[in-house]
């Protein structure tokens, strides 16, 4: 037998050993947390989401109720191909019943499609695109936490109403950025504001100085950041250097997370205005959760995405228990029928298009002097009630919504 032969056989044997975690019984609810574990969204989702999912399972008392639940996770590296590959593998070969989180709209859309084809379940916390409850809506998907429409509506409306009526957009040049800019511009115009200019920057730009110059020259009161992650924090940091805030202009972060503020530091981030659906320091229940969460997550406090994962998994388990089954389509339908209630978002509902509805909040970052403790970063500027926070049901082009 030639060496090539042996090599080939050995490789074959190695591969037959099968993919990582094996399991097969169907008395098991298997939850897959799929998100970015290593790159620009790792802190705002990443391992924190896995922790949140685990806490949800424990707090729900799955073990006591005789429900066997297993949680696995993987890193999609912000790539649609990696993400969809993992999703496919999980559903086909590893009997995963539900996929949770998935930040990055491109990956989420791909996973949405794959979940639908296989009749499984998909609970989105991380991704932003409002298409998930619009054009791409699916009977197998529920979109939790937030979406681009809510962000645009929340931040845009509130800012214009509180005096920020001239805008300049700094937009990441890809679909998500375009959508966010488009939605926010519509809102600004609708509320009587004006858009004085826009500039598009490549994704992952390290240096915003030239774009900030243009923003300054426009003399717009508000510089809208239609981007996320490193782009947002870089723009803000460099904005501080160029004296944007001192010069009387304000940044409107259209997608900002607690961990971004933490990374920037209050000195730089102060005055930033944005919309989120959850803040750990809102009430006693959220504070209690945050304390337990931080202990398990290296001291990092929960972002709204982590909170969304917790709430979604909790509600999912309730539906599974009620149905005594984990068939994806059926569970999602059941989840839509049941009103939600959890310590983090309070009471809420899920619409037929898969949109989870709850209040959104307009926050402003505190000045360093106003912050009394680590992670004490936000002050509440306004609350947007649930009925107004999300795109009206009939405007989404969702085929699941009967006209």
């Amino acid at each position, binding site marked *: 037998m*030639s*060496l*090539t*032969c042996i*090599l*080939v056989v050995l*490789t*074959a044997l*190695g*591969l*037959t050993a*099968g*993919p*990582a975690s094996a399991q097969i019984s169907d008395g098991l609810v298997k939850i897959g947390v799929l998100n970015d*574990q*290593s790159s620009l969204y*790792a802190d705002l989702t990443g391992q924190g989401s896995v922790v949140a999912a685990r806490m949800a399972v424990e707090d729900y008392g799955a073990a006591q109720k005789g429900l066997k639940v297993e949680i696995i*996770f*993987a*890193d999609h*590296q912000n*790539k*649609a*191909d*990696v993400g*969809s*590959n*993992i999703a*496919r*593998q999980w559903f*086909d*070969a590893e009997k995963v019943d539900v996929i949770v989180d998935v930040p990055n*709209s*491109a990956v989420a*859309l*791909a996973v949405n*499609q794959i979940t639908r084809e296989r009749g499984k379940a998909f609970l989105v916390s991380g991704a932003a695109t409002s298409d998930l409850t619009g054009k791409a809506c699916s009977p197998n998907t529920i979109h939790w936490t937030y979406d681009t429409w809510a962000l645009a509506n929340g931040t845009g409306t509130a800012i214009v109403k509180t005096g920020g009526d001239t805008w300049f957009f700094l937009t990441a*040049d*890809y*679909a*998500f950025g375009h959508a966010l800019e488009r939605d926010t511009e519509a809102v600004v115009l609708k509320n009587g504001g004006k858009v004085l200019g826009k500039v598009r920057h*490549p*994704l992952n730009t390290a240096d915003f100085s030239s774009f900030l110059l243009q923003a300054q020259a426009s003399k717009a009161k508000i510089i809208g950041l239609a981007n996320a992650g490193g782009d947002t924090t870089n723009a803000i940091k460099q904005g501080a250097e160029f004296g944007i805030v001192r010069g009387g202009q304000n940044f409107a972060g259209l997608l900002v997370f607690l961990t971004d503020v933490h990374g920037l530091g209050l000195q730089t981030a102060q005055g930033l205005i944005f919309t989120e659906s959850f803040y750990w320091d809102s009430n006693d229940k959220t504070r209690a959760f945050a304390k337990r969460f931080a202990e398990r997550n290296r001291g990092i406090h929960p972002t709204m995405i982590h909170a969304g994962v917790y709430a979604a998994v909790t509600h999912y388990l309730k539906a599974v228990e009620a149905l005594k089954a984990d068939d994806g389509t059926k569970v999602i339908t059941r989840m839509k029928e049941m009103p939600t209630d959890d310590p983090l978002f309070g009471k809420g509902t899920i619409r037929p298009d898969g949109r989870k509805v709850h209040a959104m909040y307009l926050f402003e970052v505190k000045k360093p002097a106003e912050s009394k403790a680590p992670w004490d970063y936000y002050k509440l500027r306004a609350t947007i009630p649930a009925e107004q926070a999300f795109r009206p049901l009939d405007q989404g082009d969702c085929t699941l919504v009967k006209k």
Partner: protein
Amino acid sequence: MSTGDTHAEAQEPAATATVPHHQVVAFVLMVAFFTAAPFFVYPVFLMKALCFGLFACAFGLLIGYVGLLSFGHAAFLGTAGYVTAHAAKVWGWSPELAIAAGTALAGALGLVVGALAIRSRGIYFANITLAFAQMIYFFCVQVPFTHGEDGIQAVPRGTLLGLLDLHTETAMYFAVLAIFVAGLLLIYRTIHSPFGQVLKAIRENEPRAISLGYRADRYKLLAFVLSAALSGLAGGTKALVFQLASLTDVHWTMSGEVVLMTLLGGLGTVFGPVVGALIMVTLEHYLAQLGAWITIVQGAIFVVCVLTFRRGVVGEVARLLKKPL
């Protein structure tokens, strides 16, 4: 790679134009393995290995037999993927036509890039290919039909030749296997043909080949176009397998990955790139849980291979067998 240094280490393909017996055996074994494997291993994983295997072989053709290291081969893989995805989804073409379109475009792109790049060699050639690949990447980011970061999603697999519904994994798998085998046979035939002989002569001593009357640039260009087209074939097929075409496939890190696969498998060998691709795909699969570790391991493999393992897996095996593989 320039003559002399590296090829003293790499394998010397057979001097005659007939097919060596042991290579036939290896080929048959490989096909047998891939035919049996989907019954034990998740087919989509294997299809990924096959597509990357074809891509790596196409790349390997250029470096192993022409001696040119292209640092921009992802451009061909990725653009073909986009064209195939678009043709299948938006124009509704059947899979074989969609893939053919992707392949043809990649070949055309290869002609343009190759015509401009062939004049250089060595590090300068790598630079030019990288420059063009970057331009193509940014073109793909901007142009509307690729949908930028979202990529082209939900690409229908269609029905092959109106007979075989490719939506089942098994059917798709065997279609991909057929494409892979066809591609490999084409490469093999090219190497063991008069054309291949001239290429080898050019690689060994270009001035001499020119003095013998061969238009070296034309041969190199043709090899480049072939390499680009086959990369496109791999890319188009991949787009249908995963029903997705994305920026990942045109990014420069993909170009780096294919270099790694070929290096790991064995530069200048026939089966090396396939083995390298299989190993890399397996590694990525098992390390997927560990995120950043994939990059670290890939880097470490690069380092180890360059320092101590330049012949690659198949190269070492071939050396032990004392036969070219």
